[in-house]
């Protein structure tokens, strides 16, 4: 067994151990407020894992993933309130719609390189926000209130306890992690990393760069929409402000950037640090401190890009963070 297989096996065992520990935490932590933060942390870990597939592995930095998040939330909420479709199907539908839209948007935007692509993602997400903000059928600016029909797994509604949401978020996080783990040692995973590092060289080695990006975008958007659908059920009320703003796009990208972009563990590590931090400052400072969490994100970005461009995971590797001196 070579070092590569050993490392992959070690990752898998570590993930399983962490999942078991995370599953046990609610037996000791009964505080609803803390449980709430734990649910959000797991959700953002999964969302950032999804973002990382396109942004980290394939190198296509998107700051518009709030669009897919919102599409997942709205599809689920609309199907349930207008047609009585169970959220599980809405979740799946939202994922598929998001993946298709990601492909449609990728078709023109993946011809753009670098900063131009990033700007395009921001603008497109903003257009999505404005469309939903003015779409009367979807509640326009007022949004959609998901009616409470009693606690049940079928309707994915729980008013008395947060634990079902916690366990769903945990499974979601594990699935997103496992998909990434699996993709890392697949044709697609190799293509994506090659496309990120050098698209010209990748093309010369038979990698169809455009298709690779499209694949990454579809998987990433699908998973992000699942997160959006979950969030709609979790908070049971959505409006464009609460699911489609730029802030969500940032919150999906930042854990990966903080923890280590394009790495398996980066998003999880980043979310575990960032999400509790922002939630806690928000509640401590209260109403007068609106926007302090945003200042924190800004500070995190500056510090990381100056001190650890590879992310916090770089602390654990033996290589220096900056470009190493050839031996």
């Amino acid at each position, binding site marked *: 067994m070579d*070092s*590569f297989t050993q490392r992959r096996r070690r990752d898998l065992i570590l993930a399983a151990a962490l999942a078991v520990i995370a599953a046990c935490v609610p037996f000791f932590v009964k505080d609803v407020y803390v449980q709430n933060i734990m649910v959000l942390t797991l959700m953002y870990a999964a969302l950032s894992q999804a973002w990382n597939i396109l942004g980290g592995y394939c190198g296509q930095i998107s700051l518009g993933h709030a669009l897919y998040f919102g599409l997942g939330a709205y599809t689920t909420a609309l199907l349930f309130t207008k047609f009585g479709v169970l959220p599980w199907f809405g979740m799946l539908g939202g994922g598929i719609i998001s993946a298709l839209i990601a492909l449609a948007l990728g078709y023109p935007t993946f011809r753009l390189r670098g900063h131009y692509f990033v700007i395009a993602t921001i603008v497109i997400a903003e257009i999505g926000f404005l469309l939903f903000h003015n779409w009367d059928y979807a509640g326009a600016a007022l949004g959609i209130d998901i009616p409470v029909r009693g606690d049940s797994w079928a309707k994915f509604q729980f008013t008395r306890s947060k634990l079902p949401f916690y366990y769903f978020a945990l499974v979601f996080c594990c699935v997103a992690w496992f998909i990434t783990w699996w993709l890392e*040692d*697949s*044709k697609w995973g*190799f*293509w994506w*990393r*090659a496309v*990120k*590092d*050098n698209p*010209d*060289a*990748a*093309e*010369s*080695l*038979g*990698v*169809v*760069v455009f298709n690779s990006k499209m694949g990454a975008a579809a998987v990433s958007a699908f998973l992000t929409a699942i997160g959006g659908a979950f969030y709609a059920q979790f908070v049971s009320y959505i409006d464009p402000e609460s699911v489609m703003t730029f802030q969500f796009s940032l919150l999906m990208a930042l854990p990966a950037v903080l923890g280590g972009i*394009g790495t398996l563990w980066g998003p999880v590590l980043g979310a575990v640090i960032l999400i509790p931090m922002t939630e806690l400052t928000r509640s401590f400072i209260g109403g007068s401190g609106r926007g302090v969490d945003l200042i924190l994100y800004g500070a995190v970005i500056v510090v990381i890009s100056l001190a650890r461009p590879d992310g916090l995971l770089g602390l654990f590797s033996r*290589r220096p963070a900056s*470009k*190493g001196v*050839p*031996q």
Partner: protein
Amino acid sequence: MSTPLLETRGVWQRFGGLIANSDVSISVGAGEIVGLIGPNGAGKSTLFNLIAGVLPPTQGSIWFDGKDVTHMPAAERCALGIARTFQVVKSFETMTVIDNVIVGALIRNDKMRDARRKAHEVLEFCGLASRADKLARDLIPSEKRRLEVARALATEPKLLMLDECLTGLTPLEAQSGVALVRKVRETGVTVLMVEHVMEIVMPLVDRAIVLNLGKKLVEGKPTDVVRHPEVISAYLGDRHAVGA
């Protein structure tokens, strides 16, 4: 010579007012090592990129293995059996050496395990086996050149195109580079190499094609080509050609 492996027929390339290639027709037979040489600005790299599929020619056609590939994208040409290296090395810097090569191997191997085995074989062949787990960005320049070749070879090409891969190396490194190219040819791969340093390529190639100012000047055995008055004048100026 039967049908050549590679052929360009009356290829032109214009960049605005600049004519980089005018009416260039060359052919490369299977199993040959052909050198594409010429002074700076002769249009070697342009012709090279046209054959690799970076851009289509303004006029003319390119044929590979009996197929018209003039408008085929680079990735598809790679699948047909054209592999290339880059003059300015383009390693996948954040990936390990073995992972770099696996990317190339994936085009002929569907299973990761097969691609990995193939990549290890190629690294062994190119003398990079001991570097397999290093990050590409930690390699020294001569190793990066080897990695370029290894990655290209992993695609199991019929034609390997080397863009100045021996330029800028120490004499010793260039020597082992030459040995590697010979070894590649022994495995049945045809080699087309662009170089502008004559001393390195001349002993290596079976045939040399000289470009100057976008046109094909002469082609033939390297020993004949270097004595050709037009080649000498292209490299050294007219004054020297008179003496020859």
